[in-house]
């Protein structure tokens, strides 16, 4: 067997690299391994599917077979890569076989962080980090009415909005003082809080869930202040963390994620990493825009190029229809000043550096329409 390009992972990263590679090279063998069904879908769609009235079955944009045909690739679904032998350029599979690679791409994504909870029902807490987990979640909630979400970040807020839209009684528990606290300044978080409250979401902010136990027909979620919520379903959205298991075992350099340079090369020759699992130039981005940019770079490099990552400005869109938000977070670690204008749900928050340079923004409600205008302005500033 002639060794070619092998991609581990069939999420948005894996398939985006595959597509970009095939645009530059249509002859080298291409293989994709996926530990799940390898249907092509976009994870961000999961947290808006109910509002869009889409079933889990309707979410894939293409089946595994379609993708094989489109990419001239061999795709192994439900096959897990258990180890990398970087000396002999082979992968170990859970089937017991080994598989050669000339160039290897790790697009293994991120794993849901387990909430730190006591109690006997932790195993029944849902976390939705892929299509199969989402299908299971949808199956569970079909006959239920009340859902408690742990976490008030992007995913927690999007699910809170989506589930409320579909008629569920949603409560959110979060140790943060306001929703989206890691992403936006407080007034914008408060606007989201009020808007979601308007569609029925009950907030339990500044609260920590400490245990979840099964009761008859519901769960008892105990909060640190001794109060309880008794939902029928618990959904954890406390965050995701780069999946580094395989890379660690292979001896690749790891920090927060798998460390790669501007060419997306790991510390071992012929092994690359991309997407939620990768730490590109010191940054782990768990969003779509950065990985699409990286996929184009890596597609070229796998075909013999030497392209480098130069991120454009990449605002994050938070799909909470009750109060949409777009945010371009300022670089971390800088002392910044936010200037906020607007009223109620329609807020524009501009972030300035000490020197008075516009370095980020957060927009809510109708102000999200100013996104392109602001990006243009910032690009001109930099240019």
């Amino acid at each position, binding site marked *: 067997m002639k060794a070619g390009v092998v991609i581990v992972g069939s999420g948005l990263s894996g398939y985006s690299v595959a597509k970009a590679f095939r645009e530059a090279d249509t002859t080298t063998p291409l293989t994709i391994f996926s530990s799940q069904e390898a249907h092509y879908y976009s994870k961000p769609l999961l947290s808006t599917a109910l509002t869009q009235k889409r079933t889990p079955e309707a979410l894939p944009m293409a089946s595994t077979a379609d993708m094989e045909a489109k990419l001239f690739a061999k795709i192994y679904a439900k096959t897990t890569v258990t180890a990398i032998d970087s000396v002999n350029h082979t992968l170990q599979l859970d089937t017991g076989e080994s598989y050669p690679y000339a160039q290897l791409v790790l697009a293994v994504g991120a794993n849901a962080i387990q909430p730190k909870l006591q*109690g006997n029902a932790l195993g029944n807490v849902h976390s939705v980090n892929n299509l199969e987990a989402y299908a299971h979640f949808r199956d569970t909630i079909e006959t239920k009415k009340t859902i408690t979400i742990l976490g008030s970040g992007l995913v927690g807020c999007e699910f809170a909005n989506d589930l409320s839209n579909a008629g569920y009684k949603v409560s959110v528990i979060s140790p943060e003082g306001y929703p989206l606290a890691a992403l936006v300044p407080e007034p914008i978080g408060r606007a989201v809080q009020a808007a979601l409250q308007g569609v029925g979401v009950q907030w339990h902010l500044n609260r920590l869930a*400490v245990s979840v136990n099964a009761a008859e027909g519901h769960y*008892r979620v105990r909060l640190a202040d*001794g*109060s*309880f919520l008794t939902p029928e379903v618990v959904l954890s959205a406390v965050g995701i963390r780069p999946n580094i298991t395989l890379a660690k075992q292979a001896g690749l350099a790891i920090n927060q994620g798998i460390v790669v340079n501007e060419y997306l090369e790991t510390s071992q020759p012929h092994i690359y990493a991309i997407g939620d699992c990768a730490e590109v130039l010191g940054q782990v981005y768990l969003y779509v825009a950065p990985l699409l940019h990286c996929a184009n770079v890596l597609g070229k490099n796998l075909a013999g190029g030497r392209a480098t990552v130069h991120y454009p400005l990449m605002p994050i869109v938070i799909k909470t229809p009750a109060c949409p938000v777009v945010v371009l977070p300022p670089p971390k670690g800088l002392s910044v000043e936010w200037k906020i204008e607007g009223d109620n749900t329609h807020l524009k928050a501009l972030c300035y550096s000490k020197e008075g340079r516009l370095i980020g923004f957060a927009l809510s409600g109708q102000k999200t329409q100013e996104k392109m205008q602001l990006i243009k302005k910032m690009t001109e500033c930099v240019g």
Partner: protein
Amino acid sequence: MVNNRFLQALRRQPVDSTPLWMMRQAGRYLPEYRELRQKARDFLDFCHQPALCVEAMLQPLRRFDLDAAILFSDILVIPHAMGMNLAFKEGEGPVFSSPIRTADDLKALKTDTLTPHLSYVFETLDRVKPLLQVPLLGFAGSPWTLATYMIEGRSSKLFRSIKTLLYQKPQVVEELLALLSTHLMDYLSHQIQAGADAVMIFDSWGGILTTPDYHRFSLKPMQRMVQGLKKRHPHTPIILFTKGGGQWLEAMANTGADALSLDWITDLAQARQRVGHRVALQGNLDPLILYGSPDTIRSHSRRILEAYGEETGHIFNLGHGIDPHTPPENVTIMIDTVREYCRNKRMAA
């Protein structure tokens, strides 16, 4: 839950064997409890530690064939949470350093929600619940009983302080009772959310009152609690217990409670006739009978089962908490007698 007899009987449904538990079944008469107790500074410190309370609750269930677990706590955690300084002194029992004597003392009490100060109680229930094969019973003192401790400052025989206040300034006592009934209702509601399958209100001192005063100062605030709880938790059984309250059973049954607990002075067969089938009945064995000979224990246990008769809705229990010096093996004799009696009844039928 594997064994549901206790809840079945509270709902006056048929059961295979009369359910049985004991007031203070977790406590000082058990050597393993006395050992566990050493792990805490004092009794209040013990109550504040869910891990210890959970273990104390499980101890009698390991040793005896019991049909319910009861929260390990004390009725006085409520006045403590309201800001009153409470100490349990060796040989003296509970002591409040600054008892309530005036309307101004009342104003010093915390009136906002107490439950955040009682999270250790809810944590105990939440943690023990998955470990149980039997229903979990929560409890609280009655407003009147808590008021007597808060005004007397300690256990009392004459109740001179509270009765003086009652006969001089009844409105001060009523104000305190209203405050307590609100807090206690919320407290029991939280216990139910934390996993309690049923709750019991202990009115240890209602029996010291005249009949009109019992209605006004003891029963009325309890009735308010029962009605409030039934609104929030319509399916959770509530047990009322006024020690020395045998003459008021009809009025207690009218509160909407699901079951009444009887002291040993009340005649069980008569009580059954008086309340009809509106409520289940629990209790009635003089706890000091457990100091008697095995034959005495057996004959009194059978007497109670016979007095209740064939009807549904009976829960075997003591007429008061088990005495701290009771030999545990005598408890086994009592339980074996009840089980054997029920087994024979079943075989005969």
